[in-house]
C-alpha cells in the first residue's frame, strides 16, 4: 500500500501542474492540441522515470557538493536520448514539439524529483515516483490540450467534429493561461471536496 501511495501522490496530492505548479513553460507552450500535450507529457515521463532510477542508484556514490551537476548530466543525457528516439520514430511529433524537447532538461519537475525524492529513496520507490509524477504531468497536459483544442479548433485528438472555426484565442497563448487557471481551480476544488 505504501508503495502504491508513491504512485498516486504524483498524480493527485503532488500533481506537478495543478498543485505544485512546476514546469509551466512546456505546459503553456505545447498544449495547443491534446496529442501535443500528451506527447510532451510522455516524453517528460520517460525522462523522469529513467533519471529517477539512475539517480537513486548513483546517489550513495555522489559527493554532496557536486550532486546537482551530476544530476543535470544524467538528466541531459536522457533528454538527448529521448530526443533522438523521437526524431527517428515520431518525426511529426518531434517537429511540433520542437525546442521544448531539449528544454525538458531545465524542467524543474525532473530536477525537483531527483533532489527531493530519488536521492533519498530506493530504486523501486523512485521508479514509482517517476511514473506517478509523469502520469500526473501527462494527464494535466492532455486535459489542457484537449480543452484548448475543443474550444479553439472544434476538434478532439485531431478529429474534427465541426468544419467551422472555433474560438481561436484558446489555441493562442492567452488561451493557455485561461484554460490552465480554470482547470487548476476545478482540480483543487475536487481535491478539497474529497477530503
Amino acid at each position, binding site marked *: 500500500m505504501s508503495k502504491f501511495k508513491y504512485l498516486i501522490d504524483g498524480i493527485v496530492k503532488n500533481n506537478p501542474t495543478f498543485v505544485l505548479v512546476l514546469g509551466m513553460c512546456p505546459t503553456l507552450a505545447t498544449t495547443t492540441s491534446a496529442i501535443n500535450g500528451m506527447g510532451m507529457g510522455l516524453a517528460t515521463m520517460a525522462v523522469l522515470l529513467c533519471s529517477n532510477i539512475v539517480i537513486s542508484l548513483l546517489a550513495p556514490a555522489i559527493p554532496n557538493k557536486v550532486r546537482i551537476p551530476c544530476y543535470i548530466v544524467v538528466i541531459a543525457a536522457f533528454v538527448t536520448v529521448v530526443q*533522438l528516439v523521437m526524431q527517428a520514430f515520431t518525426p511529426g511529433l518531434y517537429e511540433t514539439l520542437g525546442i521544448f524537447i531539449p528544454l525538458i532538461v531545465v524542467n524543474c519537475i525532473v530536477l525537483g524529483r531527483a533532489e527531493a525524492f530519488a536521492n533519498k529513496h530506493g530504486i523501486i520507490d523512485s521508479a514509482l515516483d517517476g511514473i506517478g509524477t509523469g502520469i500526473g504531468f501527462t494527464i494535466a497536459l492532455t486535459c489542457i490540450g484537449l480543452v484548448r483544442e475543443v474550444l479553439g479548433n472544434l476538434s478532439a485528438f485531431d478529429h474534427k467534429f465541426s468544419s467551422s472555426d472555433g474560438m481561436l484565442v484558446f489555441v493562442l497563448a492567452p488561451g493557455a493561461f485561461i484554460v490552465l487557471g480554470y482547470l487548476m481551480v476545478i482540480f483543487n476544488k475536487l481535491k478539497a471536496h474529497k477530503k
Partner: protein
Amino acid sequence: MAIKSSLLNMVLVLTLVCLGASAAVAVVYAVTKDPISAAEVAKKNNAIKEVVPEFDNNPYEEALDIIADLNAPEKTNKVYPAKKGGQIVGYAVESTTTKGFGGPFTIMVGFTPDGAVYNTSVISHSETPGLGAKITDSKSGFITQWNGKNLTDGSLNISVKKDGGDIDAITASTISSRAFCDAMQIAANVFNNISTEK
C-alpha cells in the same frame, strides 16, 4: 550516506558520470542515426510525390543545386527532377522563406516543364496554429489557387491583393500569406534558372 566531498572524490565522480552519460548518448546516436535520415528522406519523397505528376525515377537521388538569385550565387536551392520513361514530367523545387510570422518555413513547389504550378506542399513551418498554420491545409482555397498558374512568364503578380498582387491572402494571416508568396517567388526564380542553365 553520500561519500565525502573531497576534491579527488568530486573530480572522479563527476568525470565518471560524464563519461557514462556521453557513452550512453553515443550508443543511442549510432542506433538512431539511420532511422533519422531515413525519416528525413521519406518526408522529402512524400512531399515530392505530392507536388509533381506521376514519375518513375528517383528524384531525391538526382537532385540539382540551383541558384535562386544570380546576385547571390552562394545560395542554392534543391531541385528534384521527376521523370517518366526518361522524359521530364515536372520539377519539385524546395524553397525557404525567412519572412514567416513564426520563423522561416520551407515549402516544396511542383512545376510542370512549361512553368505552371502543379501542386505545393509545406515541408516545415512554425506559423501560429489556427491562423498562419492554415498554409498546411492542402485543400484550402489559398493553396489550390496556385495550381495551374504560370509563375514564370510574368502573367501573375506574385503578391497578396492587399499589396496590389493577384493572390488571395488567408483571412487574418496576411504575414504568412506574404511569406508564402515570397517562397513561391523564390521557387519561380529557381525554376527560371534551371531553364537558363540547360
